[in-house]
């Protein structure tokens, strides 16, 4: 398996944003021509520009374009693509799409449709895990049709419980329920949300583990019954059930090294049992005592895969592509070195984490040794209301966790995302980012100590509270000067000549000079 630029068949990247750009980079490095797809809302998006070909696949709504199997396959045929890389989200975990690719004679870069069916569906996956006698979180054996049925299971396994969408992910269609009084309303809300997001409102009930840590194992299988692991990632720090800070090695597993070994063994066992092909992630819950429970498998590349790439030196997308092209031999378990952290920069309100998409006027991303950013934007653009509001992922490496945190802190301080502005400084659009939240997070004492339970954010209200502090003298000088400059410009502009103050004074100088000369 060597990475060289030889002529290969084109890869259609059935995704958008940073992940499409990230996949395209590896394709190009390996000599695979690239094909982008885009929706009407993404005509001028960066992922379209970085690919060799690009095909419009439909309207702005995901179901009309990025989820439109027929149109995606049409684009693949038109472009001559022999491979489709689905990225994460969208069609990446739809077995029916893998089937459709096969029928069309195109190689789906991912596991077989069969192992997607076996492991991608949460209820099926639990049956597989039970068969292998691996621990999992107690819950209903299948989907429950209504709140009354959900309450029956909840009584058995005792509150608090979680209601989760059977088809879900990313925290959509998920509710914590602490008592029977709350279950009816929670079921209705979660089920409606799941129906809207996934077209399937079925729910299952799961025991809520206290002091939980979210730890996942990256595996890679050769599809012939052999698999390796590439270490773990801890993604405990979440808001609205969505990950925001991910790292490897896991701080909780550092306290329980035997648990780590047992989880690696369990992950490989599961992957080998289903003849898993390609990159997959086994998600587990680890409690404060170091017990672990299987949660679910993601049969695709994860958003947070860069931290694994940092510590192993493996380009996971390269492995995926070479496996799909039949040029891959599974190596020994890669060694892991140092520590890596990733944060997700979102277009969202930093206090309530509500999505706040809008136009970006200026963006500046960090640089320096051992700093990587995977971004959907390198210049002005617009975070679309139609899709996930993630702007960029920033990841860093350090020889130790402490070093990585220091580097992350500097990287976040360097990062700037500004809305477009009118001449008077008034922002245009509704863009907000979680940048200041991330900056506070990188300085949080619990984070620094490696004490990272899933409820870290609610336990540290200062992370999200707006602090009404007095400005620095420098800030007061800068703001007052800025406001005076802007208002002098407005005064000068009265009458609508459209000339800036500076231009006008240059004209005045020129006129004077002309006057002197004549």
């Amino acid at each position: 398996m060597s990475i060289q630029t030889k002529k290969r068949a084109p890869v259609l990247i059935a995704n958008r944003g940073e992940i499409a750009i990230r996949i395209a980079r590896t394709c190009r490095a390996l000599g695979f021509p690239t094909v982008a797809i885009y929706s009407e809302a993404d005509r001028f998006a960066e992922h379209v520009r970085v690919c060799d070909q690009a095909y419009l696949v439909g309207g702005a709504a995901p179901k009309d374009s990025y989820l439109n199997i027929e149109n995606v396959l049409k684009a693949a045929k038109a472009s001559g693509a022999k491979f489709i890389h689905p990225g994460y989200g969208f069609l990446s975990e739809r077995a029916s799409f893998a089937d459709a690719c096969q029928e069309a004679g195109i190689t789906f870069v991912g596991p077989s449709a069969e192992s997607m069916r076996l492991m991608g569906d949460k209820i099926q996956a639990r049956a597989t895990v039970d068969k292998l006698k691996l621990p999992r979180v107690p819950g209903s054996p299948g989907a429950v049709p209504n709140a009354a049925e959900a309450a029956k299971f909840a009584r058995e396994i005792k509150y608090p419980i979680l209601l989760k969408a059977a088809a879900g992910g990313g925290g959509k269609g998920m509710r914590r329920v602490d008592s029977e009084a709350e279950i009816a309303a929670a079921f209705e809300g979660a089920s409606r949300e799941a129906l809207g997001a996934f077209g399937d409102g079925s729910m299952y009930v799961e025991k809520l583990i206290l002091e939980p840590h979210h730890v996942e194992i990256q595996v890679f299988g050769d599809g012939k019954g052999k698999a390796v692991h590439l270490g773990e990632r801890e993604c405990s720090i979440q808001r609205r059930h969505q990950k925001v800070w991910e790292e490897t090695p896991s701080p909780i597993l550092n306290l329980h090294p035997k648990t780590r070994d047992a989880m690696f063994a369990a992950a490989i066992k599961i992957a080998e049992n289903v003849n898993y092909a390609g990159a997959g992630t086994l998600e587990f819950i680890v409690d404060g005592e170091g017990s672990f429970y299987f949660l679910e498998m993601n049969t695709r590349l994860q958003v947070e895969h860069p931290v694994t790439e940092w510590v192993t030196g493996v380009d996971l997308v390269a492995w995926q592509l070479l496996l799909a092209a039949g040029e891959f031999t599974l190596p020994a378990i890669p060694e892991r070195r140092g520590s890596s952290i990733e944060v997700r920069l979102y277009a969202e309100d930093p206090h309530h984490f509500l999505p706040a998409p809008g136009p970006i006027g200026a963006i500046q991303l960090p640089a320096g040794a051992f700093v990587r950013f995977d971004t959907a934007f390198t210049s002005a653009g617009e975070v679309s209301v139609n899709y996930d509001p993630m702007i960029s992922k920033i990841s860093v490496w350090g020889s130790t966790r402490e070093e990585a945190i220091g580097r992350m802190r500097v990287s976040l301080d360097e990062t700037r995302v500004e809305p477009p502005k009118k001449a008077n400084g008034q922002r245009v659009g509704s863009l907000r980012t979680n940048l200041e939240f991330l900056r506070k997070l990188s300085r949080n004492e619990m984070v620094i100590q490696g004490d990272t339970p899933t409820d870290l954010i609610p336990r540290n209200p200062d992370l999200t509270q707006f602090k009404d502090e007095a400005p620095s003298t420098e800030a007061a000088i800068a703001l007052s000067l800025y406001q005076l400059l802007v208002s002098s410009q407005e005064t000068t502009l009265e009458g609508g000549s459209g000339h800036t103050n500076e231009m006008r004074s240059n004209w005045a100088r020129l006129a004077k000079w002309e006057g002197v000369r004549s």
Partner: protein
Amino acid sequence: MSSLKGKVGSIELTWKSAPRGATGKTQVEVGGKKMDVQWRKDSDGIWIELANGVYGFDISGEPNEAETGLKFKVSERGTELGWENLSFVREGEELVASAEGAQKKGVRVRAQMPGKIIRVLIKQGDEVQKDQPLLVMEAMKMENEIRAPHAGKIAELKVTEGQAVESGAHLIILE
């Protein structure tokens, strides 16, 4: 010409002369201390040079609650420092602003993002507590509760269930 004397928060500043242009040099008095300032304004904010260093700030404004002017978010470039709701209020303008503000009663609850109102949990005239859910809005495929920013009375309800709203739209006026 308005006064060149005013306050940002509790910091009093007096500018020597009205600054003009994208770059320049002037003097400011802060808390009785005179300082030389050079500046370079750009599209996102401003750089200033003081005797002890060069500082850059990103500045963006939005209408203040009374909608009489702008309040600004100020972030120091390359640092974690940032402040919100700041404004340079010139001497003599404070009274005007507060008088205008008094005429516009009530705080507008706005949509933070474009979306659809799927539930209205209150009606006009209701007394609500701080943080009480007022509306459920669906945006980005998530249901989000819009809560009362403070206790008060619903003076005006401007939306109905099922209505699509733009970002920044006024949803409720809370007295």
